[in-house]
């Protein structure tokens, strides 16, 4: 780097160029991260601006959405991705469906993350009897047939988006707690943790100020993966009819409709399914990208 | 005396990011039959990389040029399958970390038998017996029993003995020992060095000993090459290097280590830090830390100057 002449303009352009260059280099280095982030961003835009992006309200039934013999209309200029069996616009419903997926995926993960991180930190840091109790509890939660249990819980609480979110979040922290505990056990061995004790820092301070930032990376990778799998889980529950209820669209209940009609209206299967795959892929790419960044072998590159 | 190994103008480049960086630059040395050559230097000086390149064990994508002559063959020109016949057979190698250098899921006996199988075609009872014999030769008590055990059941010293048994199983002409005692305690280090010395003299095996410990060098080696930042800066017999060091780096090293005998006086450290691969200084690589550096040193890299027979040093001060 050379700072010589007072030609300030030149330095700015050089800096700009170096910034653009850096971004470009970083995209080349971590393509998955950027692709994933792009998809997730698109998903957020869809969810937030659904009324603007969708062509029609999701619950609106069109007379011309059905053919003369009462079957769903295939894609045309009016219904770009076709209509469903009661004449609603599939495209609009898919756009609105992103709201459910994103909300359930993100917030259920947030709940799991909170429970899992706190339990994992306590378990790993204190060890001994507390560790034993928390880990047996985790084993128990992990041994449960997660899907059946979610179904049962949602059935008890009555099916709704909020309850699905809650059930998935409250039951899904097992892996998170195990991973956090494993990370804590590894990081705890580092001498900087001993050094923090030597200066007299409290356990609370050590756990949240010294340890937590150091395990944050792997936990975020897991969280991103978890959002993806929770989106699938929600769609699975809705697919089985124990999730988001009609007429509110969820990609899962749209596919369930498709199950009845796929032999003569396959587009009802394609549109929500592909949306679902892309959304999940976005979070999986994000997770893989984060992992690449965090991999110390990539730092030097 | 004939040379077992001759390394000429060895150059090794690693790819970091988009660019290649020179880890080893123009390194030449030779080892005679039955002789022990010490390659000393601090971490990152390229001594381990040099030893791995002789065995061609560096990761793919590393550029190596120059010549590594073993007998009359240039190892860098051999095919991979020809090279495999050399590894473990004509050149044996032991490493720094005995704890991780043995396969955790295989029994000790099997790990020795593998060398015998690959190079001698020995199988079954004959191979097993030879393996046990090897274990006995490297001073392992109850060899029949140990052969049936797994690495994690042995201590660090024992594991290093097993590594030596593996390396020596096929009676190689050259043993490369890369920091063989660094991970061990002093009393165990003494045992291992003793063992290496005895085995080598018994079989007239040459040794390339890579280490950072000047004490180990003085004790084990006939000749020494001192490496700094990817280059050999001084080479000579062990007496020449220790009694009449010429290069400022060698002198600095010898002055900076605390001694176990003699007067206790303030140490004279070499100031500064070892340069990293990415920003190697221009000219002589030691110049930024050298107390005697001249202007010339910062511009152009010095050649070797012959001090006396066998003894040469790469420094402009001799000019």
């Amino acid at each position, binding site marked *: 780097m050379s700072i010589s002449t007072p030609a300030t303009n030149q330095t700015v352009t050089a800096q700009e160029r170096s910034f653009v260059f850096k971004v470009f280099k970083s995209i080349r280095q971590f393509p998955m991260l950027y692709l994933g982030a792009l998809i997730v961003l698109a998903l957020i835009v869809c969810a937030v601006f659904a009324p603007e992006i969708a062509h029609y309200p999701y619950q609106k039934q069109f007379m011309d959405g059905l053919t003369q013999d009462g079957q769903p209309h295939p894609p045309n200029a009016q219904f770009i991705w076709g209509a469903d069996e009661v004449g609603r616009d599939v495209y609009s419903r898919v756009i609105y469906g992103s709201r459910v997926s994103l909300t359930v995926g993100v917030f259920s993960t947030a709940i799991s993350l909170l429970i899992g991180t706190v339990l994992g930190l306590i378990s790993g840091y204190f060890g001994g009897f507390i560790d034993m109790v928390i880990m047996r509890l985790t084993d128990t939660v992990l*041994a449960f047939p997660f899907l059946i249990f979610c179904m049962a819980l949602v059935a008890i609480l009555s099916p709704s988006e909020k309850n699905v979110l809650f059930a998935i979040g409250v039951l899904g922290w097992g892996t998170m707690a195990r991973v956090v505990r494993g990370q804590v056990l590894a990081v705890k061995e580092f001498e900087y943790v001993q050094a923090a004790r030597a200066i007299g820092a409290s356990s609370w301070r050590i756990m949240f100020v010294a340890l937590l930032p150091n395990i944050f990376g792997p936990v975020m990778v897991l969280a991103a993966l978890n959002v993806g799998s929770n989106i699938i889980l929600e769609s699975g529950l809705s697919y089985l009819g124990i999730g988001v209820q009609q007429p509110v669209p969820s990609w899962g209940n749209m596919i369930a409709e498709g199950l009845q009609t796929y032999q003569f209206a396959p587009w009802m299967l394609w549109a929500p399914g592909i949306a679902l795959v892309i959304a999940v892929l976005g979070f999986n790419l994000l997770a893989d990208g984060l992992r690449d960044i965090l991999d110390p072998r990539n730092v030097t590159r | 005396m004939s040379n077992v190994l001759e390394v000429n103008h060895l150059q090794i480049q690693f790819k970091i990011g988009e660019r290649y960086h020179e880890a080893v630059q123009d390194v030449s040395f030779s080892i005679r039959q039955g002789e022990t050559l010490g390659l000393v230097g601090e971490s990152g000086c390229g001594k381990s990389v040099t030893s791995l390149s002789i065995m061609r064990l560096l990761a793919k994508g590393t550029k190596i040029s120059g010549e590594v002559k073993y007998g009359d063959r240039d190892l860098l020109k051999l095919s991979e399958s020809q090279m495999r016949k*050399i590894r473990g057979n004509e050149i044996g190698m032991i490493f720094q970390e005995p704890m991780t250098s043995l396969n955790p899921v295989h029994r000790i006996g099997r790990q020795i038998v593998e060398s015998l199988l690959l190079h001698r075609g020995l199988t079954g009872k004959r191979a097993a017996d030879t393996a046990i014999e090897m274990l006995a030769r490297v001073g392992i008590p109850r060899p029949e029993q140990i052969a049936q055990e797994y690495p994690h059941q042995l201590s660090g010293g024992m594991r290093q003995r097993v590594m030596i048994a593996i390396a020596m199983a096929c009676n190689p002409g050259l043993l490369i020992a890369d920091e063989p005692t660094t991970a061990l305690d002093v009393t165990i280090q003494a045992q291992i060095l003793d063992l290496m010395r005895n085995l080598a003299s018994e079989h007239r095996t040459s040794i390339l000993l890579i280490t950072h410990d000047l004490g180990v060098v003085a004790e084990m080696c006939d000749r020494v090459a001192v490496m700094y930042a990817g280059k050999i800066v001084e080479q000579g017999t062990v007496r020449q290097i220790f009694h009449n060091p010429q290069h400022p780096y060698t002198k600095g090293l010898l002055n900076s280590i605390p001694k176990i005998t003699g007067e206790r006086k303030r140490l004279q450290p070499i100031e500064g830090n070892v340069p990293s691969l990415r920003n190697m200084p221009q000219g002589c690589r030691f110049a930024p830390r050298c107390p005697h550096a001249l202007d010339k040193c910062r511009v152009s890299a010095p050649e070797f100057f012959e001090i006396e027979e066998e003894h040469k040093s790469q420094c402009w001060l001799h000019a």
Partner: protein
Amino acid sequence: MLSFIIRRLGATVIVLFGISVLTFILIYAIPSDPARIIAGQHASLATIKEIRHNLGLDKPVPIQYIDYMGRLFHGNLGTSFIYNEPVTQLIMSRLGATVELALGCWIAELLIGIPLGIFTARRARKPSDYVVSALALIAMSLPVFWLGLILMYYFGFIHPWFPLGGNSGFTSLILPSLTYGVTGAAVYMRLLKSSMLEVMNQDYIRTARAKGAGENRIIWRHALRNALIPVITYGSIDIGTLLSGVILIEATFNWNGLGMLAYQAIQQSDIPVIMGTVLLTAVLVVLFNLLTDIVYVFVDPRIRYD
């Protein structure tokens, strides 16, 4: 080694206890009154009260739990409210179908995942690795029920090579197994690949090279067994996911197994059946975990002699 297994067995017992308590609490939390369900909509209060007494529902909760556990130890999971049949019998009649399906899915996962894992590890950072890895990432993102429908549409409806659902022999097993296998294999593949690459960087692989071992020997004799250790761990987690995730496959392929039984029971608040299936699945998961612990002992000598 024996002590290790016995200790794992002990942990298993604790987990089983936890499972029974949690299930019981869950069921207790269900707001619908089983007595009312059995009695029907128009039953008198007296009838309901009598049914409640007969079911033991008027006793204190801990006593109910003890009664429940007592019956459990005699293999008695109660009687289904809907089918009016012992739950044990209902479960047994469906268990075979689910085990068959789960086994099919698991084998498909391993048959696809393990070889691809080794393949991509050996071709790391080459075009073929990038292609397979990208496909794996997509496969991982596929919801099984949707993939199932798509496969059924193409290979059952458009090209009627396989039956459109139902469990009737080997051909009907292929599509569901493949569906689950494709999505699940991606995880096995990625796990084995990264673990393989990590093992290949270990010092003992360098030792094997220094001995003169060839690439094939290094992969098969030295690396694979070490690389499989984390894969085994995942295997035990996967069995759990599989046993409950199989519901989606069963629902899609109209496969009349345990999953469908549980699904219908949940919709009809058939409490004894829900409890029975949840318990059985959990117990199976725990037993599989125990089994993997034992497999561990044979793969990793460091545990065997601990």
